[in-house]
């Protein structure tokens, strides 16, 4: 096992670091004085790096499978095997009366395998250690394969899409110079691929990270890559503003993330997910990681009798089991339950920012200013899904209250995003809102206890959404950078491959399937998994019934707006004849990736929850999730176990499918067939339309609530410096000057005056005494006599008693 761990970490580290190497090479090649701007070398090098990364990831996946005897795929879902009495079983499982059965069930499941270790130490202070680690389980591997594969497709696509940058003189039609012309600049093909490589490095680092601090490091790095790529067209004010907005809004989420980190760091003294092994001399020292401390081996949270304190398991017995230390032990660690909730919410705050969840969703639509391959890779398939990935990775640390928050945030996000997508007319904006909405689904899935379901949707969504973004990119390139759907229409004939692959994507996201058969698009399986979990959850916690109904409704809306997009763009009559005439299908380097991704979008989830993908993911499911949680005793929410979820499948699946068909049908009637004129609806519900078109007013609200006040406070702070602190100093100085002026006056007027006066009076005295200096002896003797007498008189008068 040891050697397998080393092998895996080496392979994945190569896959992770190659794009960084690519970035460095491309950056230097770019600044080479005579760099040829017409060469595609940078693109090929970037593709090589990420493609080789895919190869390494695949080998790692294979090695892992062989090394673990493909245990993940052999795993039998106990829920499924007992499908006959699933309903009954589910009830039992969820309420926790059936413990022995559960143990039996979990014994069937092979033990999940995690390979973890340290690359190098960042710092160590006393017992506190910060390092760059790796944490490899089946989720890591699945993410690696997914990210590298999709990134490779997108890189190849981008060689076609960004080809117009292969010039010495690129004309940016969206930027006007003051003399009325368009802006000219050298092409930036190299730059684009260097940023893309840097992003791949950061994203893979995030996935590989073995501790939450390391996640944060790469979290920020993907953020800056996103900033650079959104602002790729730096000359466009809208692009640079959108880039700033994306980064700053993400930092708001990171503010929460940091608070979470502070709490974890102070309470646990480690950031490591897994237990850390350290060889100290001959002694093999093991320190508990975060997950062990909170959950131990069975996923159970140990709380003090009053429930206020969580007891952490950081003592290992001879069998390798972890226990809470005794109260007398100075090494005993505890954390208050409230603090654990705050820590969970804080980390989730970071996920809210990165995955564009309500209330920080506003940056993602603006991020569409970046080139379309960026939107496909960064802002739909990988980076924005990182928030979901982290929520999944960090799942053992979330207590039910945090999960409930996650569920509601996801639920609201899914709904808000979908409603805005209905009225958006920019093809990329529709997809952006749809991304927000789908990310909400994933969060919802995680929040209601569907660990596998949420991450399942992450992977399927990555496939079909990157496909759709690339299709939209193909459309945009074909239409000479027209993004408004109101000018499109009837493109099916002109660009059939794009249109049909897009249709695959649309059907996948809408979650279509043929009822009664096992034929279904990937989105059906994953969405069904989420809805089934939500249904099971609402059965256990009836008060939260909205957590099922809203996403169900949203499933219908999703189907509606996605088909609207397709009908709008590809069917009907061309709305702009001039545009239509110049439309052409994209070259092979763009359509090739589309076809490959279409296959993935349709089939990556084959078999649903019995399929390989789902089994692979759930092989790493945190311990205890499968059993569910009974919250009745602790007065919190309950979480459904596998069996309970399985019992809800058929209901949820049919409902979701029905919703999708209804949405699709309405869409067909309105936009495909034209039975109802959308303009009429728009007129009838003008205020609703305006509200949605204004994105629920979030941007305006935040502007008034945060942006403007920040600038006011900033001005205020600057003014305090100028008018208070400096003024105090100036007053002191003025006082000093005034005092010295007084001093001078005093000097010249009083002291000099006295001196002068004395001098003058002495002089005048002398002058006047000249008169007495007569030279007459008798007069002198008289003076002396009078003086002596006077002195004696004075003496006796003052000192009478002698």
């Amino acid at each position, binding site marked *: 096992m040891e050697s397998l761990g080393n092998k895996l970490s080496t392979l994945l580290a190569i896959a992770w670091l190659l794009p960084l190497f690519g970035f460095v090479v491309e950056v230097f090649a770019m600044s080479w004085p005579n760099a040829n701007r017409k060469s595609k070398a940078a693109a090929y090098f970037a593709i090589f790096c990420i493609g080789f990364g895919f190869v390494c990831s695949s080998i790692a996946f294979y090695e892992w499978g062989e090394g673990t005897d493909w245990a993940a795929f052999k795993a039998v879902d106990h829920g499924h095997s007992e499908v006959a009495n699933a309903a009954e079983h589910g009830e039992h499982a969820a309420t926790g009366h059936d413990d022995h059965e559960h143990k039996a069930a979990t014994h069937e499941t092979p033990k999940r395998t995690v390979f973890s270790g340290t690359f190098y130490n960042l710092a160590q202070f006393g017992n*506190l250690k910060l390092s760059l680690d790796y944490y490899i389980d089946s989720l890591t591997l699945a993410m690696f394969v997914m990210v590298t594969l999709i990134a490779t497709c997108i890189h190849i696509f981008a060689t076609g899409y960004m080809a117009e940058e292969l010039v010495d003189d690129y004309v940016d039609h969206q930027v006007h110079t003051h003399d009325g012309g368009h802006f000219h600049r050298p092409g930036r093909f190299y730059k684009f691929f260097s940023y893309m490589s840097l992003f791949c490095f950061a994203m893979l680092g995030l996935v590989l990270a073995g501790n939450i601090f390391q996640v944060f490091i790469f979290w920020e790095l993907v953020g800056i890559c996103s900033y650079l790529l959104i602002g790729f067209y730096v000359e466009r004010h809208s692009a640079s503003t959108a880039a700033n907005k994306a980064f700053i809004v993400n*930092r708001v989420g990171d503010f929460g993330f940091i608070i979470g980190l502070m709490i974890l760091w102070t309470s646990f003294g480690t950031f490591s997910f897994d237990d850390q092994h350290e060889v100290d001399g001959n002694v093999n020292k093991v320190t508990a990681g975060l997950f062990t401390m909170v959950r131990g081996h069975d996923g159970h949270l140990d709380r003090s009798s009053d429930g206020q304190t969580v007891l952490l398991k950081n003592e290992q017995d001879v069998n390798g089991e972890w226990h809470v230390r005794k109260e007398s032990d100075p090494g005993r660690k505890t954390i208050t339950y409230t603090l654990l909730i705050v820590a969970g919410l804080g980390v989730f705050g970071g996920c809210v920012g990165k995955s564009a969840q309500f209330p920080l969703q506003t940056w993602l639509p603006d991020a569409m200013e970046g080139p379309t391959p960026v939107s496909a890779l960064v802002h739909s398939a990988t980076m924005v899904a990182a928030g979901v990935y982290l929520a999944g990775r960090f799942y053992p640390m979330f207590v039910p209250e945090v999960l409930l928050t996650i569920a509601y945030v996801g639920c609201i996000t899914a709904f808000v995003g979908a409603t805005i997508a209905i009225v958006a007319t920019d093809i990329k904006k529709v997809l952006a809102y749809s991304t927000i909405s789908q990310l909400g689904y994933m969060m919802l899935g995680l929040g209601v206890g569907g660990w596998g379901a949420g991450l399942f949707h992450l992977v399927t969504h990555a496939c079909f959404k990157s496909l759709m973004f690339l299709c939209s990119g193909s459309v945009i390139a074909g239409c000479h950078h027209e993004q408004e759907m109101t000018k499109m229409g009837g493109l099916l004939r002109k660009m059939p491959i794009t249109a049909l692959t897009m249709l695959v994507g649309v059907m996948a996201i809408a979650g279509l399937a043929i009822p009664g058969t096992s034929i279904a698009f990937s989105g059906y399986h994953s969405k069904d998994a989420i809805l089934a979990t939500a249904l099971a959850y609402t059965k256990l916690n009836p008060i939260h019934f909205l957590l099922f109904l809203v996403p169900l409704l949203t499933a219908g809306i999703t189907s509606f707006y996605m088909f609207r997009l397709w009908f709008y763009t590809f069917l009907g009559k061309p709305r702009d004849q001039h545009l239509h005439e110049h439309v052409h299908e994209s070259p092979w380097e763009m359509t090739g990736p589309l076809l490959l991704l279409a296959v993935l979008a349709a089939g990556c989830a084959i078999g649903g929850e019995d399929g390989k993908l789902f089994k692979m993911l759930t092989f790493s499911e945190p311990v205890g999730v499968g059993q569910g949680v009974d919250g009745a005793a602790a007065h919190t929410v309950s979480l459904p176990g596998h069996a309970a979820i399985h019992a809800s499948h058929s209901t949820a699946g049919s409902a979701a499918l029905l919703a999708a068909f209804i949405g699709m049908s309405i869409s067909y009637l309105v936009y495909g067939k034209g039975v109802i004129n959308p303009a009429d609806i728009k007129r009838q519900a003008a205020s609703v339309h305006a509200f949605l078109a204004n994105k629920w007013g979030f941007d305006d609200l935040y502007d008034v609530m945060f942006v403007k006040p920040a*600038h006011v406070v900033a001005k205020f702070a600057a003014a305090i410096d100028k008018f208070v602190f400096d003024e105090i100093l100036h007053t002191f100085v003025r006082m000093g000057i005034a005092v010295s002026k007084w001093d001078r006056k005093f000097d010249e007027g009083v002291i000099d005056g006295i001196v002068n006066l004395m001098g003058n009076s002495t002089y005048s005295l002398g002058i006047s005494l000249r008169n007495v200096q007569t030279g007459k002896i008798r007069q002198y003797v008289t003076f002396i006599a009078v003086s002596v007498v006077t002195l004696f008189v004075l003496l006796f008068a003052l000192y009478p008693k002698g």
Partner: protein
Amino acid sequence: MFTAETLTSWIIFVPTIFAFFLVFFEKKAVEAMRVFALAGTVVTFFLSLALIGQFTVGDGGMQGKISVPWIASWNINYQLGYDGISLTLVVLSAFVFLVSMLASWGIEKHVKGYLILFLILETGVMGVFFALDFFLFYVFWEVMLLPMYFLIGVWGGPRREYAAIKFFLYTLAGGVLMLIALLMYYFGSATPEAMAITGHSGGSFDLLKLAEMAQRGDIFSPGLQVAGFILLFIGFAIKVPTFPFHTWLPDAHVEAPTPISMILAGVLLKLGGYGIIRIAFPLCPYGAQVAAYALVAIGVISIIYGAFAALAQTDFKRMVAYSSVSHMGYVLLGIAVWKISEVTGVAEGRDYWLMGMNGAMFQMIAHGVSSPGMFFMVGVIYDRVHHRDLNQFGGLSGLMPNYSGMAAVIFFAGLGLPGLCGFIGEVFVVLSAWNYSKTLAIVSAGGVILTAGYILWALQRVYLGPAYKGPHPEAITPMTSREQAIGWLLIVPCFVLGVYPNFVFNYTNDSLTKLVDTLDSGYQNTPKPNSVQTTQK
């Protein structure tokens, strides 16, 4: 010839020797003088590297100590030495002086005088870092003051006289406070108990001995420690600078010529932090602990206040100056997160304090690289277009792509991007703060949003956009090779430190561990008046 004992003196006086020989250069031999002065800084830098070679990692104590009687009747010695704390800062300073000298090629006025003052300034700085005698420390401290005053006042911008006098007054005031504390400790150490430690009659200026006395606890009364700490802290806080003693900084920075701004930000501010770590804390552990909450609060206020003020600036250089106030706030915050349990009265989570201290040291080094970088980047564009109005730039990324790329890296380092140096210091300090105070820790974490705000907004206005909007567009030419070299010199350490922070922690950790131990025992040994104990937070 170059043992650890003599290297310290060489590093201090090599710049002065070069300055002395500069006197004999002909006035017209400008280029030769520059090269000669540069050689002086290069030699000093390599000597500082040699000092690293002499350093024993793992030993937290003072190394390479020498002590020669200077004014024996007052027990004043020429006493030098260094540990990990001073070593890292000495190397940083020697590096920043070297880079700033490279950046001084544009100085045309009274070149000889400029170079001589520049080198004397370096001597003063190095002396402060090595001095282990309080009086010697004070002398070097004041030696720095005059060259800086003239460098700002003669070679500065339009309001140079105002800025120079402001700088002078503030620093002088700080120096006077330090002088009072110095005398307090000199006469306070003339007791019989103290003589047992010093081994001679009369008071002592020996910083190590004074620290040892403070650690014993019964020699310096709590009252003396509190009063001494307040005096010393204000004296050093002016230099850091922290809120509310910071307003000299924006003016001094804005008016100073680019290389002098680089030295101000990269080196002189660090002297404040160094003074707090080397003198204020060890001499008054009790006073420091009593004031800890106030210090942490001042640090946090500086972070937030500086960031807000930076957001409001329209002058590019002034914005960078305020970013220094914000970034140096982390230093104070990290130093002061010394938590004493209210129940048991002993230190709680000392490893977190140690982490904060290390973070503060790292932040000083990191800021010592990134901030000169930012000032240099401002200087490059100012030299071309002769204005700094943030609203009158734009489009530089198209006109000067290499320059813009380098500037972006440096500004991202200031923004605290992982992989670059600014991240480690900031995040380590913030992470250590929760143990001390939850509220203040949360407020300090809020700094990340504001920092992103002011830096990205400035980047957008200066580098992005379609066209340059200000005057002298014709003067915008690509970076010269000298400027590129300076840029690279500053960028490389940003990456190295950001990726492998142990380059700093390897040297600082042992010394800081020792410091934390002695401070803690000093506080425990000091008899506590009951009235003060209750004010503990």
